[in-house]
């Protein structure tokens, strides 16, 4: 699957945020903050990653009356997802490194 994934910058940011601690469970706002993305952007990426089964969502197990707030939906990388995410990020990094090597542009000689 990872070889089919064409990584984009926001996706990279989300994966890096999740890979910072693969065992940690984060909810939407925390992920967006960690990734440095504006609100709402992280959710669609998470929807994709969930579809790919790279992340495992889980509803928080709390009593809303005690906590004074509804249960949050937490996301965590699956074991396979973490591995695929690392591979995809490494490929994206290599691809970027190749792009950094530019073909020198010809400079017009003064006539």
């Amino acid at each position, binding site marked *: 699957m990872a070889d089919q994934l064409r990584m984009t910058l926001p996706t990279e940011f989300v994966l890096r945020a999740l890979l910072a601690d693969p065992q940690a469970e984060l909810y939407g706002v925390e992920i967006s903050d960690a990734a440095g993305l504006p609100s709402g*952007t992280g959710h669609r990426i998470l929807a994709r990653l969930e579809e790919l089964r790279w992340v495992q969502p889980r509803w928080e197990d709390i009593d809303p009356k005690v906590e004074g707030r509804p249960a*949050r939906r937490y996301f965590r990388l699956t074991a396979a997802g973490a591995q695929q995410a690392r591979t995809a990020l490494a490929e994206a990094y290599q691809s970027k490194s190749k792009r950094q090597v530019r073909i020198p542009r010809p400079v017009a000689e*003064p006539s």
Partner: protein
Amino acid sequence: MAKRTTRAAGFWPRHTVQVATRVLPGATRDRYRQEFLAELYGLSRARQLRHAVGVLSRSWALRAAINTPSDAAAADMEIVFARHRRPLFCLLNRHRWETFRSEDAKPYRRCQRCGKDETDVWAGSKSGREYDPDEISARLFWGGGAGPGGLV
């Protein structure tokens, strides 16, 4: 009476989030509504509103992401996510230039934010100055060659 430890969601953020989830497919609408509402709790009032507006503005993109089947999710990821808007400063032509070196060790500059390369206006300068507005405008006007002012 249990003590509330988190700031409750305000009316307008809650309403905005509910409007945002109306465009989502019926099967996932309630799930996202609960998720977005829960995320509002604990945020400051201003942050709640910003978050809700952000969710609203990207609700159609979320709908597209949800509707994409799993086998196409990987292949289509770039199509949905590549519409990353250019930063405002870059739109205003206020780039954050950073110097890189090409294979032949010649320096070139590229914007850190949007990845734009600096134009060839700078190339071939013999003035020794990196930014010379007169020279740049003259080069743009005369097509990069020698102008009447003996620029090159």
